[in-house]
């Protein structure tokens, strides 16, 4: 189970952080946002990194989940849990219906189609004000509670969202290392070759597309309960692009890379706040420079660097091998 080594490390880090820094803004507030972004990035990475299908509309499914939960609980008095399920159901229908025609497309056409889908969803959220509250958003969303344990503090949200993240990561790692995971990787390599080997590429791609959408929808529901408020600007195409950036920045086809990308893109603006007017420019420059000098993403780039630094030491070779197998697997 070597491919789970990184997962244990992640679990321990996530558990220890709030113990060392209780009530720390960067852990329980920004950390929760980062974890939420990580869930989305990991799910998007399944689609992009492994199935090789770019999606610029992921925020749309995030939005469907969020609004389904928000509308059903506030306007129709539903309990939050069935509302999550309803969101998942709606997402499944939308994703499944659109998967076939959309996934027939390739490259930039696929990018455009998913981008368009995300934008259409966003326009509906803005225009259908009677249900969605329009651009001002929808407030008063109740919080989750689990057997009387109400999720009402930042720390509790940290526990919930980080737990979901861990489950999603575990799921992703296992999918990648299963038979269908190998099929996925084959897809990224060459679809025709995969077909030749007897893999039903259409079914596999559809499956991944729907799964990624479902995870995004779940994240959306959690987001709605955590914020107690939703508005369309959280689900715009800018956010879709941000998610893609997270995946690419961290390193495509690497679950850990996606997490690293999510963490960096969540914390970077927090840190750049001090630059005020220069913030936008610096952010753009950092993004460009990282992609120019680490085109395969940070995770892979750093692994290469680590290996070069420790090349001639015995222990280092072990580490490199672990990294190698970790990369192959993760």
């Amino acid at each position, binding site marked *: 189970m070597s491919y789970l080594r990184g997962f244990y490390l992640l679990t321990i880090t996530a558990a220890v952080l709030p113990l060392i820094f209780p*009530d720390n*803004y960067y852990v329980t*507030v*920004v950390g929760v*946002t980062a974890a939420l972004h990580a869930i989305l990035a990991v799910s998007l990475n399944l689609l992009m990194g492994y199935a090789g299908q770019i999606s610029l509309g992921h925020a749309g499914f995030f939005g469907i989940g969020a609004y389904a939960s928000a509308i059903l609980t506030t306007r129709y008095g539903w309990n939050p849990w069935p509302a999550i399920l309803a969101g998942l159901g709606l997402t499944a229908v939308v994703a499944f219906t659109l998967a076939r025609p959309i996934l027939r497309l390739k490259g930039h056409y696929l990018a455009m189609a998913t981008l368009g889908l995300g934008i259409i969803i966003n326009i509906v959220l*803005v*225009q259908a*004000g009677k249900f969605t509250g*329009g*651009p*001002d*958003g929808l*407030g*008063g969303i109740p919080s989750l509670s689990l057997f009387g344990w109400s999720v009402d503090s*930042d720390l509790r949200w940290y526990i919930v969202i980080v737990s979901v993240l861990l489950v999603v990561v575990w799921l992703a790692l296992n999918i990648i290392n299963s038979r269908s995971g190998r099929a996925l990787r084959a897809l990224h390599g060459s679809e025709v070759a995969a077909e030749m080997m007897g893999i039903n590429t259409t079914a596999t791609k559809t499956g991944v597309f729907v799964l990624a959408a479902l995870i995004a929808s779940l994240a959306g529901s959690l987001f709605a309960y955590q*914020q*107690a*408020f*939703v*508005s369309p*600007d*959280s689900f715009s195409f800018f956010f879709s692009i941000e998610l893609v950036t997270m995946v690419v920045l961290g390193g495509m086809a690497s679950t850990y890379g996606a997490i690293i990308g999510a963490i960096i893109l969540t914390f970077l603006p927090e840190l750049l*706040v001090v630059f*005020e007017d220069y*913030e*936008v420019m610096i952010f753009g420059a950092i993004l460009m420079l990282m992609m120019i000098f680490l085109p395969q993403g940070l995770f892979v780039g750093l692994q290469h660097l680590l290996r070069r630094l420790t090349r001639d030491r015995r222990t280092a070779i072990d580490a490199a091998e672990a990294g190698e197998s970790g990369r192959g697997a993760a």
Partner: protein
Amino acid sequence: MKIRKTVSMLAAGLLLSLAAAQTSAGDTIKVGTFLAVTGPASFLGDPELKTLQMYVEEVNAGGGVDGRQVELIHYDTGGNAKEAVNFAKRLIQKDKVDVIVGGSTTGTTLAVMPLVESSEMPFISLAGAVSIIRPVKKWTFKTPHTDAMAAAKIFGDMQRRGISKVALISGSGGFDKSGRAQSLELARQYGITMVADESYGAKDTDMTAQLAKIRDTDAQAILNFGFGTGPAIVTKNVRQLGITLPLYQSHGVASKKYIELAGDAAEGVRLPAAALLVAEQLPDSDPQKAVLLSYKNKFEAKYGDVSTFGGHAYDGLFMALEAIDRANSTDKAKVRDEIERTTGFVGTGGIFNMSPTDHLGLGINAFKMLEIKNGDWSIVQ
């Protein structure tokens, strides 16, 4: 002799500055703010931030409040509700501010309200919608006039001119949509029927299609709720299509920029706005005049054309500081109570009288109906 004098002066100066350093280090009043300084609503957040910075500096130069220096901590939300919630948490938990004056847009304000209520943080919003203060929330106040007041003022003026059929065109932003909803709701009370309800996107560059449709209705006037480039383009397109109906804009265009962009096409356009825009034209007896002129002159000397939005920040900041001054402490409950007791506060938006049932404290007469004449504002009597 001369040396002694200098030395003693130096010593005294040193002592003074030490004392000042002590009070400012240990005991500042922290005013937190989160504003849409960039993004589509930057026309709100930008003058608001400039106003806050300018006046905090001035208050500090004048010795602060109760001898305590004021520290402004600000974050840019870009108009994004999610960012706003995170920054509000940062202000409350990490920066431990005493009061929050901010939230340029209705969306960002509504998003943080559950948080400020549960953390019991006095909060003065700078956003428009009436839903912020109705129903009244214990810890949330606001200074700008509501969109419902703007709509009422416009319809009042239309009624006087005998207009009963109106075509509405609005943008897709929060301000626009909220204004549209209030207009549709209030129209009936003023005996007005809406004969068209068109909309356009935030970055649209041409509205002639919508306006051509409006031209073929039997509307007697056009009402445009929006801000940014939209209203300026609508104004130009109306004239381009040769439509001669009276055009009403909302307080969203209440800055010189609008007249500059729309040019000659803006002649005759009417809009409700705070008295700030026409400060010079007010009679000297007007209690607001001095405050307005002082704000306007200071802002324009430093940054250029004044808008009413920066004025909301002025009102919010001083309402908060005066409440802290009256409370003689930064105890949050006391400050909140004092904000609620604000009476006769002369601000840029009008004269505020807060109460437990009214967390805005402005009446509809705080708005003036303006008409654009010869490239400048004039008051409609």
